[in-house]
């Protein structure tokens, strides 16, 4: 029905008067005086008071409302065009290579944040060393050069290029020598770049020098077998290992590789097979390797030579002179005889190594190994290790050339002789005579600061490149970020300066590989960027026989030994964290406790406790150490059980003066070394006197014996073979436990861990991996001294002593021991045990720490009020408290408190504020990530898919993580092992981490 109703708005409309009709035509019934208002007259009218106040009121109100907006303005720029492969929150992994090891670099939103082993690589499976884990921090080092410099002034690369090229051409014309001084380069492409540089400037010679070189081995092998190479040692094939001061699990040649090989003969799997290698170590200072040895005999540096001669005589029945010098050390003398017997029994499965850099000693070692049939079995001369090509003799003659004014230009590439040469003054004086001094160092270090041209190279994470650690094994270095600063990689600079037709090093590497390496392996460049490495296969290892006269060699050894024996003998060594000193500005490594002494942030003079007593020294006394050449340093004393009496061990790699903000730590011991017998010798003598001062070293552990407590359980291999439960005190019978609390139901997963004390060597790379993964702050020397280190995982190291067949572990008994040389060491990684009956959980007043349904002990940082009751009640003392706001406190500026370095932080892990407790979370972000990945793919989690950061970094595979609810998981199997025990199980905390007993292969003499 249609409505006819009409509504009218007024009588006017109803009447429809003409007046109304006229008005209604327009939109507005009345004319609006717009023109009037906007005309001049209108604008000049005085605003009425009311209007003015209204406007004022509104204006003020609006302005103050606008001003009330307190929220800070964050400029977030969305990806208008999303970069390929970058998804916020999802990590990308790129293969690369570091020190010859194929690695994976984890990047988040374009920032590299973690280095992980490339599991698929040849030597990968698991594990990296601590330095590799810490290397990520070098990218974010604020002490690096921000761009090139010429004569101390910032400049551009163009200017540098034209200047250097001009100078080089002048030098080439004048016939002056040009030298490239580098640390050992294993990179085929870099070597090729240098070769082409030499073609362009034929006056050039490439000198390779290593701070700690293996010239002795190279020379000895050249003399003995005509091959100046470092062979591949095969500790996995050795049943009896005799090491004379070679720290082969730590710093000697390739510790990480050797660890994997060595542990393979000692871990659970090997023990199951009834097999365990026997390791005898003769050494001066207590090394990481020494702590793992089955028998360890302290010898002085002067006794090393005689010991090797004695061993040679015992093994071959020879009559070399010089063995008598060992007679005074009866323990060593007996041990050598025993070792020789064991070596001979294991012919072809025996290996003798020496850490000496002396050609004579290494020659005798070659003779022994040859007599034992090691060549072709445990030593492979045909597949050499390329990491150390440094030649001490070549460097010495280079210094002479400089001194004679023959050198016109020198390029320093990864070498820092002003710091690490044994005679720095000779070097710096000689260097001053060189007109063109170029440094590629990434920072203005000791050598770079003497150079005129600073052409800083990029970090390896910003560079292209390649490496070949072992013959036939090639790894690729690929950048994961654009250069942060205005740096250019050294190879690129050399290409530019040698007028190479290929200006781009990326193209250069690519074409080099495509031409020389990839065709042989049948791989493409793309394959390479996915796999990270190419292996062209090992050459068959030939067997070599030593045939030479050792009389002259033995005489040299004897005279060197006599020279050492006259005074307090000094043993210079590298420690696992600082190595040769190139990592001095890395806070993670500085704070990584020494594997043996647990000292951080310093080097020291280690002496035997009994020797110190004789000399009237006590711990932390400052002593002046005066070397043979008059070089003097003052260092604090550390009483190191196991140190040979009458000797002092000092770590090199410290005392950097120009490494950067934090690198000035300790004293430089390199100048104590001397050049003798054609190589740099790290054994020398010194006069030591007390200065009267004291200096407390920052140690993370200050009590060194386990007081006979049941926390460390060990057995001998002989007992283990009789009863695999030996030493666990369990004997297979299960305890019945009574609970006050209801049991935690673990539906789904039950995350646990197994740690094999017989596999763990104590190297500490797990600590650094954990630091990087979990954003653990570095606290610095003073705070470590205050016993406030923040490490979530630590390695407890305990000494025990053998006194006439009785094990002495209590401190008051140890102090009464006459002989402290029979020392055994155990390393016990300690981290949150994720107890099922967690003492921390019951005492927290605010439920900030609680148990998860999958067996983890959680920590809710946001809920923590910081009473520290949980830490007090933790029997394992693994909880760490944030005493300061480490990420925002000027006291920690040196370490991680700056915006640039904080780019390193793992965005998946909260940084903890001051006043909050923290501890091992069992890498909960990794567990969660793994679970989510499986969930998205609608599948069950696979055992081993989730790896803890510590586990991943462990070269020895000592840590296994997994699901206890899965009886077939690796960790379940490991925990069913007879050797399994739980630390402090008697207080019924029901820890989630099981340990396997330490087994020592001790032969009853």
């Amino acid at each position, binding site marked *: 029905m249609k409505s006819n109703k009409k509504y009218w708005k007024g009588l006017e409309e109803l009447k429809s008067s003409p007046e109304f009709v006229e008005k209604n035509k327009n939109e507005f019934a009345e004319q609006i005086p717009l023109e009037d208002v906007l005309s001049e007259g209108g604008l000049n009218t005085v605003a009425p008071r009311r209007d003015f106040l209204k406007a004022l009121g509104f204006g003020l109100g609006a302005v103050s409302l606008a001003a009330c907006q307190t929220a800070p303005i964050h400029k977030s720029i969305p990806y208008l065009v999303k970069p390929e492969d970058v998804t916020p929150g999802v990590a990308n992994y790129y293969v690369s290579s570091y020190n010859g090891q194929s690695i994976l670099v984890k990047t988040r939103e374009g920032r590299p944040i973690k280095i992980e082993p490339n599991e698929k690589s040849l030597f990968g499976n698991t594990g990296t060393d601590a330095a590799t884990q810490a290397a990520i921090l070098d990218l974010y080092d604020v002490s690096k050069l921000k761009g090139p410099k010429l004569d101390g002034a910032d400049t551009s690369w163009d200017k540098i290029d034209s200047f250097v090229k001009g100078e080089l051409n002048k030098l080439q014309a004048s016939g002056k020598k040009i030298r490239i001084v580098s640390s050992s380069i294993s990179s085929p492409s870099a070597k090729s770049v240098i070769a082409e540089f030499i073609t362009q400037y034929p006056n050039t010679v490439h000198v390779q020098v290593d701070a700690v070189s293996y010239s002795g081995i190279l020379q000895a092998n050249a003399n003995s077998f005509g091959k100046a190479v470092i062979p591949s040692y095969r500790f996995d094939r050795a049943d009896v290992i005799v090491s004379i001061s070679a720290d082969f699990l730590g710093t000697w040649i390739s510790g990480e590789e050797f660890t994997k090989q060595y542990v393979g003969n000692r871990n659970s799997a090997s023990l199951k097979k009834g097999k365990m290698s026997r390791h005898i170590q003769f050494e001066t200072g207590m090394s990481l390797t020494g702590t793992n040895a089955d028998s360890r005999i302290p010898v002085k540096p002067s006794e090393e030579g005689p010991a090797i001669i004695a061993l040679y005589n015992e093994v071959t029945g020879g009559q070399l002179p010089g063995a008598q010098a060992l007679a005074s050390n009866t323990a060593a003398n007996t041990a050598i005889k025993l070792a020789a017997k064991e070596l001979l029994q294991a012919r072809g499965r025996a290996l003798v190594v020496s850490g000496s850099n002396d050609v004579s000693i290494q020659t005798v070692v070659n003779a022994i190994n040859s007599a034992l049939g090691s060549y072709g079995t445990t030593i492979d001369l045909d597949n050499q290790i390329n990491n150390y090509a440094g030649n001490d003799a070549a460097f010495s003659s280079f210094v002479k050339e400089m001194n004679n004014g023959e050198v016109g230009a020198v390029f320093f590439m990864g070498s820092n002789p002003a710091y690490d040469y044994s005679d720095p003054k000779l070097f710096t004086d000689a260097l001053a005579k060189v007109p063109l001094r170029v440094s590629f160092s990434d920072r203005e270090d000791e050598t770079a600061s003497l150079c005129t041209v600073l052409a800083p190279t990029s970090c390896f994470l910003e560079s292209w490149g390649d490496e070949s650690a072992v013959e036939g094994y090639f790894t690729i270095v690929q950048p994961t970020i654009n250069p942060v600063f205005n740096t250019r990689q050294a190879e690129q600079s050399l290409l530019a300066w040698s007028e190479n037709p290929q200006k781009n090093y990326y193209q250069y590497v690519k074409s080099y590989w495509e031409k020389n390496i990839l065709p042989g392996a049948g791989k493409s460049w793309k394959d390479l960027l996915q796999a990270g490495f190419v292996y062209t296969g090992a050459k068959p290892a030939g067997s070599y026989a030593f045939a030479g006269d050792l009389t002259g060699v033995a005489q040299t050894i004897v005279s060197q030994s006599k020279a050492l024996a006259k005074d307090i003998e000094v043993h210079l060594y590298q420690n696992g964290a600082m190595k040769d000193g190139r990592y001095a500005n890395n806070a993670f490594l500085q704070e990584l406790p020494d594997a043996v002494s647990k000292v951080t942030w310093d080097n020291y003079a280690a002496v035997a406790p009994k020797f110190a007593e004789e000399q009237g020294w006590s711990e932390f006394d400052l002593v002046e150490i005066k070397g043979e050449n008059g070089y003097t340093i003052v260092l604090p004393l550390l009483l190191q059980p196991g140190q040979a009496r009458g000797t002092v061990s000092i770590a090199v790699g410290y005392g950097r003066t120009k490494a950067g903000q934090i690198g000035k730590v300790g004293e430089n011991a390199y100048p104590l070394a001397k050049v003798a017998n054609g190589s740099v010798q790290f054994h020398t003598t010194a006069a030591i006197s007390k200065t009267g001062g004291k200096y407390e070293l920052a140690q993370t*552990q*200050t*009590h*060194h*014996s*386990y*007081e*006979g*407590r049941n*926390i460390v359980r060990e057995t001998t291999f002989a007992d283990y073979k009789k009863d695999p439960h030996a030493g666990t005190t369990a004997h297979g019978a299960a305890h019945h436990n009574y609970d006050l609390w209801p049991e935690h139901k673990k539906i789904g997963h039950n995350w646990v861990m197994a740690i094999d004390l017989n596999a763990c060597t104590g190297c500490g790379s797990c600590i650094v991996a954990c630091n990087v993964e979990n954003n653990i702050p570095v606290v610095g020397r003073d*705070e470590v001294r*205050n*016993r*406030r*280190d923040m490490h979530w995982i*630590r390695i*407890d*190291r*305990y000494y025990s002593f053998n006194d006439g067949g009785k094990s002495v572990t209590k401190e008051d008994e140890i102090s009464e021991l006459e002989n402290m040389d029979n020392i055994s060491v155990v390393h*016990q990684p*300690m981290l949150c045990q994720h107890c099922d009956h967690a*003492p921390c959980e*019951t*005492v*927290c*007043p*605010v*439920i900030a720490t609680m148990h998860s349904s999958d067996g983890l002990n959680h920590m809710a940082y946001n*809920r*923590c*009020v*910081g*009473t*520290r*009751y949980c*830490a*007090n*009640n933790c*029997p*394992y*003392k693994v*909880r*760490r*408290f*944030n*005493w*300061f*706001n480490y990420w925002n*406190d000027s006291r920690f500026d040196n370490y991680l408190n700056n915006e640039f370095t904080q780019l390193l932080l793992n965005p998946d892990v909260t940084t903890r*504020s*001051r*006043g*909050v*407790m923290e501890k091992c979370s069992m890498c909960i972000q990794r567990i969660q990530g793994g679970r989510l990945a499986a969930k998205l793919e609608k599948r069950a989690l696979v055992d081993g898919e989730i790896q803890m950061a510590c586990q991943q970094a462990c070269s020895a595979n000592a840590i296994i993580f997994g699901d206890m609810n899965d009886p077939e998981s690796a960790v379940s199997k490991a925990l069913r092992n007879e050797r399994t025990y739980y*630390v*402090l199980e008697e*207080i019924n*905390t029901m820890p989630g981490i099981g340990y396997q007993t330490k087994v020592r292969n001790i032969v009853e003499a």
Partner: protein
Amino acid sequence: MSAHNESILREPLITGKNITYSKITEDVLVPVENKPNKAWWIGFGIAVILALTWVVTISYTFWVGLGTWGLNKTVGWAWDITGFVWWVGIGHAGTLISAVLLLFRQNWRNSINRSAEAMTIFAVICAATYIIAHMGRPWLAYWVFPLPNQFGSLWVNFNSPLIWDVFAISTYFSVSLVFWYTGLLPDIATIRDRATGLRRRIYSILSFGWAGSVKNWQRFESVSLILAGISTPLVLSVHTIVSFDFATSLEPGWHTTIFPPYFVAGAIFSGFAMVQTLLLIARKVMKWENYITMFHIESMNVIIIVTGSIVGVAYLTELFIAWYSGVEYEQYAFLNRISGPYWWAYWCMMTCNVISPQLFWFKKIRTSIWASWVLSIVVNIGMWFERFVIIVTSLHRDYLPSSWAMFYPTTIDILLFVGSIGVFFTLFLLFLRVLPGIAMAEVKLILKSSSDQVKQKLIREGKVEKSHGEYYQESLEKYDSVSKSDYAKS
């Protein structure tokens, strides 16, 4: 209650001649109604300086973080919780005196309960500051209360002894405060009645309209009894619960069932020592010798010797049980206390708490003001060390020797503790200036029954047996506030 005469054989609780109700009022209110004397100013000046030190150090700690203290990864509590337990312990005497002694009708408490209760309240305040200060994030301290919150059902952990502590301490504080204030009402009314102007108005409000009527007094007496009944269990419970902080843990040296009684005895021990420390000075400076007599001092010394001996037995029992348990961690913890790096703290504790109070067996020492004062200080030092020994020497060497560490206090630790003593004395000295330090009403209550003048009168009037009268005179020998010549005449 006090209409009848007390036995002549009992020692007088009020001495002096011509003590009247008004004289008591005059005497007690001297510090409240007059300008403070020099002694007060000196004491107050020192206390305020120390209190300001506390303000500065605690502000610094809050600003920078707990790293300013000497704690470390192994020793998570040290001077903070030592100070906390020490102050809570000191607070114990107040309730014991006001509640337990009231129920047992120990009239001698009437002269000392006011100051003792005030001391309790101030000591608990000092203890509470430590609870907050020891937290890593003190601004979230309110999270330890089961408050409704926006997190859903996020509750506190009722399993945690720290939560029990929160309840125990807050209950204790509030009950003590109410008890103290109730007792103050008639006295405040007295001040009000004597004051003028603004003072009168303030005290008028504070007196809650006390009129002194029979009904008022009747209710006052009942409330006192009820509150005494409520407080009595608190005397036992508070330190029992504080001891649970340790006893329920796993820490060797803490995990001990003897802790509750041992802590309560220790608390009473230190509480009485502190009362002694304060009142011996107060009675001299305020000239209150007639009200706080040698009998009071001796009685407190007797309690000190009893509780001190209980504590001593507890120490020895701990050692025995550690040995008897056969637990190596437990054995080591006690061996370490005796002979470890902190041996001096243990032996300091032993000397101060067990050996030196035994001197009170000698009447001469027990009734010597100087000896009592010095020993009261010694006891408080000893009790501080007891808590230090329990907390630090247990923590610094527990299960895993790798984590063994030493604790060294920083300047902040020390200043904070010394400062808290300043806070305590500042509050106490202010209290003496505004409120009567002796419960006037309660002292007046016993004037007609237990004072020396009443007993003298009885003797003079021959209402007591001669031998009893002589006995009474002889036992007055020790009194510094009684002149023996008064008795020569009779």
